[in-house]
């Protein structure tokens, strides 16, 4: 396994992250280290029980130094911003690097689905995408992560030994071999290193 922190990945244009059970703490851990002037867009799907109004963006905005928003339909993706998928809608990245929402059927009982975000972002960013799959209790994200890899992007799976619920990381590992299997601490360092790595 490469030591990602020692060999910063180059040419990353955007980051997508997926998580389910245990995801709030995991995301706070990896994003908590990011500085105010972090230069890349981050788009995240975190499964939550269906609620009409999600507080995710507010919760994370209070705890992080980077700007945090709930993704809006047709919004152009801005560098340095963390976007969360709102509840009840799938979130995709379009070819013009805008965000779009849709209400197709659930994937692995989930809407938003990590698979849809990852696959659409892979189509839009190709080799410029870094995709990270974290703790979770279902198999959403595994296929999307494999699609990222096929499209030339870089894939990271949280070390299942550390994940609060290992089902999601293990499902991903069963489908493809990611570029990195890392603990949350090292994923945070990897993200922080991207910011300083020249493109």
């Amino acid at each position, binding site marked *: 396994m490469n030591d990602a922190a020692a060999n910063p990945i180059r040419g990353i244009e955007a980051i997508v992250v997926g998580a389910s059970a245990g995801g709030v703490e995991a995301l706070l851990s990896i994003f908590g280290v990011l500085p105010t002037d972090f230069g890349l867009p981050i788009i995240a799907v975190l499964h939550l029980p269906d609620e009409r109004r999600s507080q995710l963006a507010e919760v994370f905005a209070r705890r992080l130094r980077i700007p945090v928003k709930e993704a809006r339909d047709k919004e152009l993706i801005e560098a340095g911003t963390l976007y969360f998928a709102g509840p009840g809608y799938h979130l995709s990245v*379009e070819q013009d690097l805008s965000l779009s*929402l849709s209400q197709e059927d659930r994937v692995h009982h989930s809407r938003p689905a990590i698979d849809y975000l990852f696959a659409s972002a892979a189509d839009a960013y190709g080799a410029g995408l870094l995709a990270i799959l974290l703790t979770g209790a279902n198999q959403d994200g595994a296929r999307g992560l494999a699609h990222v890899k096929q499209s030339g992007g870089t894939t990271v799976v949280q070390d299942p030994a550390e994940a609060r619920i290992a089902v999601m990381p293990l499902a991903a590992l069963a489908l493809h071999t990611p570029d990195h299997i890392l603990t949350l601490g090292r994923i945070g360092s990897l993200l922080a290193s991207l910011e300083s790595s020249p493109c």
Partner: protein
Amino acid sequence: MDKSSDIELRLLIEAIYLKYSYDFRDYSGASVKRRVAHALRQFDCATISALQERVLHDPSAFMQLLQFLTIPVSEMFRDPSHFLAIRQEVVPLLKTYPSIKIWIAGCSTGEEVYSMAILLREEGLLERTIIYATDINPASLDKAKQGIFSLENVRAYTANYQQAGGQCSFADYYTAAYDYAIFDKTLRENVTFADHSLATDSVFSETQLISCRNVLIYFNKKLQDRAFGLFHESLCHRGFLVLGSKETLDFSAYSKQFEPLVKQERIYRKS
């Protein structure tokens, strides 16, 4: 990126437009791509080109594909607070009109239509209202005309109805038969169901209120602007436009031509 399949997808969409005049060229790409991929599995076609060949030479195959390309996800009184806001903020103003025309654009299988009709009946407005309910999918329109919904779903709609400020018992509006709820046909006496495309057709009537919910998210910005243009043209002076909970005029060329009445509930008024 699989370049060949992207080319095939564009060709399929173009072929559908040329042959059947259904225009998906300005739909949001990511979702169309997934729906075609889903259709490929159902049609047992190995490539999009194979699907294109079948659809071009067999109109019934196209009608089948259309069911995949459109998304019939709907609920009655979806986002109850939206309907409550219509009742409280829009209805008092609608009451000032001697007659009312409402356009429900992209009505799918009719859930939005029956919701609106029930709300109008309770406010004493249904008798003097004409509702135009339009969609591009004839199968959805047929279902909407029947007004038969699964009883299981209707249970969830009952909670929505109550939260939306419903004044009666929801069961007053339908008859239960086996696993279905058959809605009162007098609700649709003043409803005209019609085939209409926001991508290719033009305005057909002046209206006081247009409801277009969870339709525009499937369009790219250009097509959204076309739809907003039609709505602007159809609406009377100070007419109402209501959208889905995640839809906004904010990124549109028409953002200045409408003003929010209840922004949180996506209720706008022509400026």
